[in-house]
């Protein structure tokens, strides 16, 4: 009917068949055990919601309004007890090794109960994916094992990522923009390490984290080619916390200022520097862009899941109100206009969910989770006894050649279309999911009238919380442009993105 070469040629026209069909491909490739794992994770999340988050969320939000400098240590300890800070760390690094896409479902579930508390658990994994994207295996192993130890001892060891600066928000999320931005956090090479100077702001979970993955620049004039990622421990000399931001929502999770004043970081805590990126196939700038996109393609799926969670929280709150309120002598849920609005809200939740799921399929086949979801590796790590992993893994991981190999596979072997696909879908999911979250909150408040306005009825809190999602991990505006760059403009030489007007 149609020849093989014809099929190939037609499918390589826009839109690329592979851009369109991530789930279709994934259903044949990803390990079937992921279904069961995901089911377990959702069950766990729902139990945690019921036992821990739901009784606590409104109270904490209230406390934070009274005392904005309060730090929710108690909750962090609780989450640590439940094992949430190691659940998605691969077994070879001392974690429980659950598949990473299931983290997104977890974020939706916990996010639907409280975005602030969900943030406290999950921004930790933003830092985890940042260190993973550097593929510096010995350091990954070191840090992850500290987290695992924290779980055993009951003294939480959380990680945070520090990117945003006072003068540069959107700029630092995009390699194309960073050279035009006003970055100020510098790392100066000294003997045996680097000295960091400058400050970072809006760092989620900063005050409650033990380690901070700090992105800074060895040359502030050309940041795109001089990016360096350094791990800094709380308590290091020259490092201190500044203020906790007083936010509109997501109050449960502190947004911290980190201040560096000649803070020394030894060479063996350098996750990634020009020395490493220079060795890869792509140029330094492109490799930095690729690493950033690796992180963002997975973290943005997560933010999208939070958007789905917010959308769902708002929907469930409104549905509950509609089921229990009489309007004009009839249960509100039996008014057609309300059914129609609730259906629209249900749909918004589903759409948000579909976008993050699809993005994770892309990440599993072409992005950050590619290696780990390869069936043989997946099952090998799943069934390998922990004791063997603990014994042998560090030895292998500490070999420089292992890092080299992983970087080869993940950085050099990722083709441009693959990298565009994951980054573009990450952006698509991010702005879609979070817009849906916001939209549902607005609708919930419309439906609920005065009940929607009261903190003790939850809807207004979700609205305050969900607005943040449209802003962090790159504003939704930036994400639209990134989608355009990755999935529409691609390599069309006529189209310029992020160009000065």
């Amino acid at each position: 009917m149609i020849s093989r070469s014809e099929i190939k040629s037609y499918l390589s026209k826009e839109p690329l068949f592979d851009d369109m069909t991530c789930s279709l491909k994934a259903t044949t490739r990803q390990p079937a055990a992921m279904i069961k794992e995901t089911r377990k994770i959702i069950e766990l999340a729902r139990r945690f919601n019921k036992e821990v988050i739901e009784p606590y969320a409104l109270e904490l939000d209230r406390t934070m309004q009274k005392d904005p400098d309060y730090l929710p240590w108690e909750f962090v300890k609780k989450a640590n007890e439940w094992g949430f800070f190691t659940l998605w760390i691969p077994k070879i690094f001392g974690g429980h090794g659950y598949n990473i896409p299931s983290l997104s479902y977890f974020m939706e579930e916990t996010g639907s109960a409280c975005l602030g508390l969900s943030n406290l658990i999950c921004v930790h994994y933003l830092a985890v994916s940042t260190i993973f994207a550097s593929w510096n295996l010995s350091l990954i192993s070191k840090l992850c094992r500290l987290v695992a130890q924290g779980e055993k001892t009951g003294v939480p060891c959380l990680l945070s990522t520090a990117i945003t600066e006072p003068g540069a928000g959107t700029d630092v999320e995009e390699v194309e923009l960073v050279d035009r931005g006003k970055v100020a956090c510098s790392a100066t090479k000294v003997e045996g390490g680097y000295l960091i100077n400058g400050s970072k702001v809006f760092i989620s979970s900063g005050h409650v984290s033990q380690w901070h993955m700090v992105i800074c620049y060895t040359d502030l004039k050309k940041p795109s080619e001089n990016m360096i990622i350094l791990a800094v421990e709380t308590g290091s000399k020259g490092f201190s916390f500044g203020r906790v931001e007083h936010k509109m929502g997501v109050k449960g999770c502190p947004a911290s200022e980190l201040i560096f004043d000649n803070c020394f970081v030894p060479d063996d805590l350098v996750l990634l520097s020009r020395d490493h990126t220079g060795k890869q196939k792509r140029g330094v700038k492109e490799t930095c862009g690729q690493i950033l996109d690796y992180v963002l393609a997975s973290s943005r799926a997560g933010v999208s899941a939070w958007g789905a969670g917010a959308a769902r929280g708002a929907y469930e709150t409104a549905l509950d109100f509609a089921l229990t309120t009489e309007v004009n002598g009839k249960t509100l849920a039996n008014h057609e206009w309300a059914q129609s609005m609730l259906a629209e809200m249900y749909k918004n939740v589903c759409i948000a969910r579909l976008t993050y799921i699809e993005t994770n399929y892309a990440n599993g086949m072409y992005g950050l989770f590619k290696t780990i979801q390869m069936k043989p590796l997946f099952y090998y790590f799943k069934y390998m006894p922990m004791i063997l992993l603990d014994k042998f893994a560090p030895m292998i991981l500490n070999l420089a050649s292992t890092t080299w190999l992983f970087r080869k596979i993940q950085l050099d072997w990722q083709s441009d279309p693959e990298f565009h696909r994951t980054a573009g879908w990450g952006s698509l999911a991010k702005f879609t999911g979070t817009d849906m979250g916001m939209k549902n909150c607005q609708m919930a408040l419309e439906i609920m009238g005065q009940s929607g306005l009261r903190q003790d009825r939850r809807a207004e809190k979700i609205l305050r919380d969900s607005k943040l999602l449209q802003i962090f991990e790159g504003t939704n505006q930036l994400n639209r442009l990134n989608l355009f760059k990755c999935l529409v403009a691609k390599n069309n030489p006529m189209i310029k993105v992020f160009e000065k007007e």
Partner: protein
Amino acid sequence: MLSEKETTIIALEEDVVEFTETKPTPPAPKKEAKSVDVKDVKIAAKKTAPRTSKKELTMLAKAASEFAKKMLAPNREENDKYPFGPFFEDALEKAFGVDFFHIILPEDMNGMNQGMSALSVTLDNICQEDSSLGGILFTNAAAQELMIQAGSKAELERICSKETVRDFLIALPVFNNPSEVKHLAQAKKTGDAYTLSGSLEYMVLGDLAGQAIIPASIAGSTRYSYFLVDLKDKGISKSEPILSLGLHACPAVDLELNHVKATLIGQEGKGSDYFEKMADRLHVAAASMALGVMKGSFKEAFDYAKKREQGGHEIINWSEVKMILSNMAIKISNAEMIIEKACKAVDTLEAKWETRSRAAALHIQDMACDLTTDGIQLLGGVGYMKDFGQEKRFRDAKHIQALLGITPIKKITFIENMI
């Protein structure tokens, strides 16, 4: 005075009735009878110029509404077939006869010397029934306004003394702002005379009007100028009427120009100034076209919802249907208030009148696009068919949104004017 006005309306109505009744074989236009009416309308208007009193607006609204109901509504589906069906020549001539094309012209050109309030109220009422004629009125008014802004009084006067509607009409590419997308002809100057060559896209009324206003660039200049050309000129070749989304009976053509004699309008290089000044005023008129379409769509949906039964009762009893109708009615009520205020601002040159006019258009055109899609939705399958006019209103609303340029650019210009 009042009785005089009433007579005018009655005379107008009678005339329309008579005209409609004899429609199958329209007689030669009765010049004398018409000119009486025209004079009366003019007299009524003249006395309060330049500002129109509320009563006069009501009167004009009533006249336009009666006209639209009798001359446009009955043949709406038929008229919409153009260019594959006949053109509504009768309605056009009749509208010309009752001076709808003279509203903004100064008195010394036999005009009503009225402002945007009067033009808007007319367009609103016409567009409730059929916005194609509204499009013709709008385009022609825009062209007149452009010439007034450019100070081409003599030229305009010459045109306005023409006796037949086709000779009188002026074509203008009214859906494009030439400084945004450069659809321009090339002008060549020899001595004091100009000739135009090149092609020009989407000339509205190009196959109808006696003359056209054409934006063109003169070699060596980065800015464009406006020229008036006679559309009968041998150097002009016109395409077939362009099949378009909406406003089918307000047709446009593509022009090819080959050394066409042209008269400069205003000064060289000032085209964009004239366009923007014209657009400042005419935006509110475009908004009132959208309003008219909204009203028509709402009325049709409202009537239908009261009659149509599904699930054993009239669909208006479904609360979701009520909700949709209510959203439509709210939009209309807001649009009315906005337009009234904006027209007043334009006519009395209140502070920021230009902003008011443009803001009204951008917002109301958006609303009209939302409203008309609901207007179809409430009629379900039949809303999509030609029978009820809802599908036409949906198309027209979107079409009207494109008046005077690309919508997002109009929005960007709006904020840039404030920066």
